[in-house]
């Protein structure tokens, strides 16, 4: 149930006996801003590393061990046009521990200290801790180039998205990072605390009244709920953009991006899930069967659907000289779907696979929490029963129709041959 603590700040408690842990999240939701991308992730790292009560990483780590190996992390996520900073704490339910005390109350205290009482001096984040996190984030940003699969996916997005807030990686850029000062970050942080929508979510074998009492002690003032649009929609580009890059690699990466304006739980969404599953989203997909199993051209060939940004991307790892052959096979699979060349078995098995993955997610505390947040953002909860009914109601023709909305926009190829 969702309860307002103060305008713009809400608490949702989901009592369940399924898990042996309690998970608490405090999410700060703001409109995506290309200039704040790097700031927000750096802020997350700074808040995670220290607070006024626990001024060193050692002190934080010891406190978490003391609470029986509790986990604490601050992450940043871009969902369509929303930018979410999520502070998550999870700990074992004390009924499985002898003399552990009340861990829910301890968890709230810890979260409050981490988020609302940071390590500050002279109106800025503690310089030493700040500089360390800044340096570490910089190292991380640079090291992404070493993960070729990720690097290719990011290069594709960079070429595909016209909006800077979308084309920039969600962890920010080195150029932005360089400019951030401890004072500036602190000012940004104060703005977030004052203006961002805040959602507190608790799941576990907990008492709702107790959670409400604890959440009510958070030092928050009224603010507005997130006003911005949630879904990103990009103008169709006339020409297909092709980007090529050379690096010292053994395997080439061929990635493709398609505009696909079908959005999360909006019209055509359930058909879109099936379409993506048949195309390359599932292990039995056309891409897997044809690029890998029939032609032996790749170990992986997959597609993924971003229903908040209205696009589908294809990722493959292949031999350089097979680029044309692989691209032809990918193009043919999509054309086949558009022409209705899908077997009944493919259609039905894909439905079953999607249902399996949807219901399986209910067995994971972190997935449940993510879903709760998405429901809040989209202002709509869909029960497991309703979800399955909607999926099963999708007709064969609906899939073909939705597939026809895909439009190839960008091709990215990373190869190892230097011309």
């Amino acid at each position, binding site marked *: 149930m969702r309860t307002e603590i103060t305008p713009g700040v809400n608490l949702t408690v989901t009592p*369940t*006996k*399924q898990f*042996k*842990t309690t998970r608490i999240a405090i999410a700060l939701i703001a409109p995506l801003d290309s200039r704040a991308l790097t700031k927000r992730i750096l802020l997350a790292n700074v808040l995670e590393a220290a607070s006024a009560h626990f001024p*060193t*990483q*050692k002190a934080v*780590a*010891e406190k*978490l*061990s*003391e*609470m*029986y*190996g509790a*986990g604490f992390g601050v992450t940043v996520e871009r969902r369509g046009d929303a930018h979410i900073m999520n502070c998550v704490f*999870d*700990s*074992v339910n004390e009924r*499985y*521990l002898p003399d552990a005390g009340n861990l829910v109350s301890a968890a709230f205290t810890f979260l409050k200290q981490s988020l609302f009482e940071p390590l500050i001096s002279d109106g800025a984040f503690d310089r*030493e801790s700040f500089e*360390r996190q800044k*340096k*570490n984030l910089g*190292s991380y940003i*640079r*090291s992404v*180039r*070493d993960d*070729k699969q990720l690097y290719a996916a990011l290069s594709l997005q960079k070429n595909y998205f016209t909006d800077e807030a979308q084309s920039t990686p969600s962890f920010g850029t080195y150029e932005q990072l360089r400019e951030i000062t401890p004072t500036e970050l602190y000012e940004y942080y104060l703005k977030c605390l004052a203006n961002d929508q805040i959602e507190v979510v608790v799941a576990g074998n907990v008492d709702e009244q107790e959670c409400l009492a604890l959440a009510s002690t958070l030092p928050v003032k009224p603010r507005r709920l997130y006003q911005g649009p949630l879904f990103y929609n990009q103008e169709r580009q006339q020409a297909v953009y092709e980007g090529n890059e050379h690096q*010292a*690699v*053994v*395997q080439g990466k061929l990635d493709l991006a398609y505009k696909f304006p079908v959005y999360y739980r909006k019209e055509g969404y359930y058909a879109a899930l099936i379409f993506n599953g048949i195309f390359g989203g*599932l*292990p*039995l997909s056309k891409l897997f069967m044809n690029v*890998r*199993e029939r032609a*032996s*051209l*790749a*170990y*992986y060939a997959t597609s993924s659907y971003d229903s908040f940004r209205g696009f589908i991307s294809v990722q493959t*790892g292949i*031999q350089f000289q097979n680029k044309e052959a692989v691209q032809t096979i990918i193009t043919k699979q999509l054309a086949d779907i558009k022409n209705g060349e899908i077997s009944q*078995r493919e259609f039905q*098995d894909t439905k*079953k*696979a999607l*249902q*399996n993955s949807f*219901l*399986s997610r*209910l*067995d*994971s*505390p972190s997935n449940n929490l993510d879903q709760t947040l998405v429901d809040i953002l989209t202002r709509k909860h869909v029960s497991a029963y309703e979800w399955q009914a909607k999926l099963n109601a999708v007709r064969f023709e609906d899939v073909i129709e939705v597939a026809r909305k895909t439009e190839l926009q960008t091709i990215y190829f990373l190869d190892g041959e230097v011309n």
Partner: protein
Amino acid sequence: MEIVQYEQFGEKMYKEKLINGLEVNILPKEGYHKTYGILTTDYGSLDNKFVPLHKTKMEQVPDGVAHFLEHKLFEKKDHDAFDLFGHYGADANAFTSFTNTSYLFSTVNYPQKNLEILLDFVQDPYFNAKSVEKEKGIIGQEIKMYEDDVEWRFYFGILKNLYPNHPLSVDIAGTVDSIEQITVQNLYDCYQTFYHPSNMNLFVTGAIDPEETLKLIRANQAKKQFASDAEIKRAELPNDETGKDIIPYRMLELDTQRPKAAVGIKGLDEVPEGRNGLIYKMQVEMLLWLLFSDTSVNYTRLYNEGIIDDSFDFTFQLERSFHYASITSDTDNPERFCHDIIDILENAEQLLKGQYQQFNLAKKEMIGRQIHAMNSLEGIANQYSGHLFTGATIFDKVAIVQKMKFEEVLLVCRSFLRSEAVSVYQILPKEGS
């Protein structure tokens, strides 16, 4: 059937060893939607020299056969087991490690049918030359993908230092050249030698009725004929207890962004048998935690001095026939990193003195982590130890931590941390990259 009660966690496990030797473990989980089943054979990439069933002489098979076999077992004469799982709404997968090969499914649909598919496809091999040839292309790409993976190169780099001339130094999937040599006969030889039910275990957990499930498994197995179980004769692996074969230092230059450094420690001491092996393993993990976790003085110092960052990690691996630890980080100063880590290892005993309080803190941490892992069906089933620690489960681990004594950690510190067992590996960015 035996029922093991884990009262502290409100869990009950049903165990039975079938007549054909297959070990079955069933753990029902209330409130879960999914069922997870995993069938494991005590056979992995290290087992590349053995006496094939019904033969008398040792034979060497090409590197990568265990993993190749894992891929090919899904393919049947008239269907693919992977498709069949998909048809019954299950996700299926498989993985090969140095000492095990596992096949698994996860599903909310028809759990019993999928369990039968799992047993049937693993227990009914069908290999043919044409499909073996075709698989070489796919696995070749898998190997190449790993060649571009700096983390993977790094992982094997330190292993090759600690275990030169040992199958551990070869990629689990083999090499592009070695898989080229794999034949249908190799696959059958390995299968017949290592896939006997008496060398395997099945773990099923989730939304299932334990008694019905067991009945189904018994009936499924009773229908099948197996050779009588023969003792498996594996070649002895090269094992130099003096540590003289260890390569003390190697460095590789790659087109990467940041230097990486690893300090490895090869286990030259003897691991106790059975359940005591797990106790030993957890003691070493405790030792490393006290020396290197983010609550330690050492970590804090290195982190604050900028020698390590959040990529810092330490692990301990113990499987059939080998054990080693590695301490790794991305670092701008690989020399300092290696020097300081080795310094900590050499003075470990001294550093541990007066750490009794930290030890108790670590116990809480470890107990909590185990209970966290019990939320996940995969966590529960994949942690089942099989033969290695005589059937220990995740639930047994909490009790081991609770009983652990500080003095025991000091003892493993002396037996495991030896200066002749240490090696260093680094990956450095190429000039100009």
